[in-house]
């Protein structure tokens, strides 16, 4: 089964300050762990919304709006696709994410099963 994990953004991620080398290394090791376990299908970290644009279609008209966008909690910072046997396994993997190790981190992830063409 495939799951996409959406990591919700926060003020730090949106602030465009580059991640510390330690954090970078920790994230790299974490991706490596998933890769070594054969469960990582794809992973992308997204640039902050200041580099993004929204395209809206309404009443037959397109409008574009450049970021940054204020509702930080609604924004997505990263997308990971995993191939695991169950939702619980995806959750178990999220719990190993290093950026959660420092005690005062607040983070939100959303897990969505990928729609199988056969379904």
């Amino acid at each position, binding site marked *: 089964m495939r799951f996409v994990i959406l990591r919700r953004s926060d003020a730090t991620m949106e602030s465009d300050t580059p991640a510390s080398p330690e954090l970078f290394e920790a994230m790299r090791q974490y991706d490596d762990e998933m890769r070594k*376990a054969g*469960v990582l299908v794809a992973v992308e970290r997204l640039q902050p919304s200041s580099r993004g644009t929204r395209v809206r279609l309404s009443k037959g008209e397109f409008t574009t709006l450049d970021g940054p966008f204020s509702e930080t909690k609604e924004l997505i910072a990263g997308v990971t696709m995993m191939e695991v046997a169950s939702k*619980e*396994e995806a959750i178990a*993997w999220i719990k190993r994410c290093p950026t959660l190790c420092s005690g005062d981190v607040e983070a939100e992830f959303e897990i969505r099963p990928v729609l199988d063409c056969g379904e």
Partner: protein
Amino acid sequence: MTATSIHNTIDAVWRIESAKLIAVLTRIVRDVGIAEDLAQEALVAALEQWPESGVPEKPGAWLMATAKHRALDLLRRRQMLDRKHEELGRELEAQELTVPDFSAALDDDIGDDLLRLMFIACHPVLSSESRVALTLRLLGGLTTDEIARAFLVPEATIAQRIVRAKRTLAQEHIPFEVPRGKELPQRLSSVLGAIYLIFNEGYSATAGDDWMRPALCEDALRLGRILAELAPQEAEVHGLVALMEIQASRAAARTGPEGRPVLLLDQDRARWDRLLIRRGLQALERANALGGARGPYALQAAIAACHARALVAEETDWKRIVELYDELARIMPSPIVELNRAVAVSMASGPDAALELVDALTAEPALKGYHLLPSVRGDLLAKLGRYDEARAECERAAAMTRNAREQELLLERAREFAARSADGHRPQ
């Protein structure tokens, strides 16, 4: 957490941690069977305690510590019988039951143990079926029931197979090590063979089968990917992974309405999983970058890649495919490879050249009952306008296969050729 979700979580943790657990324990107690028993005892303890205490923050470490405690108890009990066990016991105590942090630099050592476990589970002294069962059990983290459902055999059969396999490994004193030098290629081939067997079993599953069956493809892919990280310097490992990724990419396009199989050249390529193709091509790149003569898996993957790169069937580089089959035939000569090569030749150079090749194969004893031989011959004859002969070959092929769907397809073609023959149609 509800009772069900705690159990599902424990299952998930088991899937993630069990292989490493068993690998490390095998190194400690020097016996795969005992190691697995200890791991199972730790699992039982988790099932008893975690619903009350909650899932620990580092579940892998918890299981490892529990298993190591039991290993010590076991060795103490045996101390009377064997000096070797005494030494092991002291060794363990000296380590003060330190537990590897699975997320840290000790990864390398655990990686070595995992690799050793893969090799021992696929040891040539075991039957092919035993290697498959043991690999899925020790490295895949599948339960006996799951393996049984996947292979359509009773659970007791699989249980027996695993027990006997462990006994054989113990009796033959198979060492827990990564084979080196001259031994390595054959031993590696044994591991790759087991993984590919698992993949093909999953690939052959049809709609309506227990979902554990097609899930075997994912299990095989996972094992292959793990092996690629453990032994990145082995080109054939990447070759096998590439082959499986690309084959798996076609899963959605392989069956038509009512579950009819769709031949590769007729498949809707929009339904091919481009992500898996990309991964497969990357794995193939890794294999090629390692240099040296290409092995059979890398070559088969390269052939699969030719198909994957063609956005429509008409764009297939058949010339390249023929060259690859030439190479494959040199290192892995077999009548089946020759037959597949003939099909590629017919696409690249026309049916005449191919028919010559196929005619030469009709005398091959190895292909005697092989229905694809007359099937291919029938196709070639049809392309040459020899419809009556083509019909006869399709009927012969249909009589040779026990697969109902294939029979149907072949008889359909036979009828089509009969009609063309009767109408005096020109060649296609």
